[in-house]
């Protein structure tokens, strides 16, 4: 059982990640806040509770691997890496600047801690499969985690990869779908519906788990359940809200898929996200 203290601690981390997401995308005056905010709780639990990793030794052989398949959610990954100690937090504001390691979409050669470069949607799950296969071939115990977007699941390669995950019984792989229900052109169900979404994953041989993607306890329980299932891969469909934590982004998620807040909006966003206990930020 996870303690309430741990849950509160992770909630605070997620809040910090959200603050960084707003600040760094505003500093860059571009980027993808909506889909970064929706994944913040998942990423907080992964980096600060679930994954075995060593920020001072990013190449540690036995580390768990994390692939952000929706590469445009780079800000949330950078925020987590910085908070975990991979690099100084103040470097976050170099996001998208020329010469920065914080590329618009994650780049594994630019930044230690990034396991796979992504950006062209649909590719991350195949790479995650390769890592999970390597883990098994080498008789290692590391797990592989992969976050995909829901809109991303319109890519055919996701389903090619899903067949690979289940055919090779990759029970050391947990896939998360950041199911925030929006894509650039509109609501997913109005652009090209994924329904029946859970059934699709089931049909492709996955153990399907649902969770509230903004409830730390629910996320942890889902991850724990996924790990216990042997002989097949698991997918956690995380019910999330695009722009989570910032009222005006939640209200107009399409306006903040690939656009940063204005300086005025930034103030409002930060005032909503900052609680007294985070005052040291």
């Amino acid at each position: 059982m996870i303690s309430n203290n741990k849950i509160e601690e992770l909630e605070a981390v997620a809040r910090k990640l959200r603050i960084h997401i707003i600040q760094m995308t505003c500093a860059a005056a571009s980027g993808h806040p909506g889909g970064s905010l929706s994944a913040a709780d998942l990423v907080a639990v992964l980096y600060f509770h679930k994954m075995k990793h060593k920020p001072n030794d990013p190449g540690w052989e036995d580390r768990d691997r994390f692939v952000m398949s929706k590469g445009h959610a780079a800000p949330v990954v950078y925020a987590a890496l910085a908070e975990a100690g991979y690099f100084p937090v103040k470097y976050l504001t170099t996001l998208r600047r020329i010469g920065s390691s914080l590329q618009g979409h994650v780049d594994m050669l630019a930044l230690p801690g990034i396991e796979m470069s992504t950006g062209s949607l649909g590719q991350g799950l195949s790479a995650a499969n390769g890592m999970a296969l390597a883990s098994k071939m080498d008789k290692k115990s590391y797990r592989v985690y992969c976050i995909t977007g829901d809109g991303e699941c319109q890519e055919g390669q996701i389903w090619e990869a899903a067949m690979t995950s289940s055919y090779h019984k990759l029970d050391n792989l947990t896939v998360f779908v950041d199911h925030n229900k929006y894509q650039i052109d509109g609501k997913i169900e109005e652009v090209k519906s994924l329904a029946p979404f859970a059934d699709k994953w089931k049909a492709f041989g996955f153990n399907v788990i649902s969770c509230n993607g903004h409830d730390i306890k629910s996320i942890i329980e889902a991850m724990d359940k996924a790990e216990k299932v042997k002989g097949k891969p698991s997918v956690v469909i995380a019910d999330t809200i695009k722009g989570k934590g910032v009222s005006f982004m939640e209200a107009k998620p399409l306006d903040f898929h690939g656009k940063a807040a204005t300086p005025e909006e930034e103030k409002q966003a930060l005032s909503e996200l900052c609680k007294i206990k985070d005052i040291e930020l």
Partner: protein
Amino acid sequence: MQDKGHRIVSEIKKLATREVYGKTLVELGKDNPNIVVLDADLSASTKTALFAKAYPDRFFDMGVAEQDMIGTAAGLAACGKTVFASTFAVFGSGRAWDQVRVSVAYTRLNVKIVVTHGGITTGEDGASHQANEDIAIMRAIPNMTVIVPADGVQTEAIIREAAKFYGPMYIRLSRPKTPVHYDKEKDKFKIGKGVVAKDGKDVTIFACGLMVAKALDAAKILAKEKVSCRVVDIHTIKPIDKELIVKCAKETGAAVTAEEHSIVGGLGGAVAEVLVENQPIPMVRVGIKDMFGESGQPDELLVKYGLTTEEIVIAVKAVFKRKK
């Protein structure tokens, strides 16, 4: 090969480069447990089936899913494996181009994309299966090394080198058996270094793949007409051997390129880029003239699409005239 006098080891010996690939992989797999091989439902044709049989634990048939194969290869390579991923050239280059670009080349991962059935000699399967554009689209990707071996002996050497070389590579092999003109004992090859297969002073023929043999034949015919041809095998199209190309341009003053590929963007394009910027000289490209192929036997297609010794002879004469 009907001519003697250049580096012909055997007049009758023919080898399919894909066959050599499969056998070489098996040998490499013996000493190097880190090699993993992937295929996309074509292992019987690409000959990775030989590796699959020898080392079933290190072979994955990814099914009819080239994009997923390339992505999986990237993941395996990210965990330290040396990955050979094979399919037909059209699919390895075209179908999975974006996956090669983002998951393999952008990441500079150790994935060797070794494709077979390159070019028009794929034959009866027709235009959809004839990769005549693959060299162009692969060499446009940063971090890629692109190689087209000339024969079976060179293929073995290149595959062995590839296993030692870190980084993404595209190696293009052929379907039919082609003449062997290199000597396994004597001839050594280095990635990125062209081979002067025959010396000459009037015109240089830069060739790759099965056109190297035809260039050597053309040189023999032209020698009778008092045109001295140098034949240079540019097996590595990227990074191209700029130094050798410029040297040949200076020494011979005219160039012909010969490749089993479109004249757009392949060896001809790569050589032209080097020449125009460094040592402009008259040049003619022999290759497929920006068109799709069709079904037919490989030898018939080579003739119909202008990939012959005679075409090279005509091109050399034309360029030789312009030189004067």
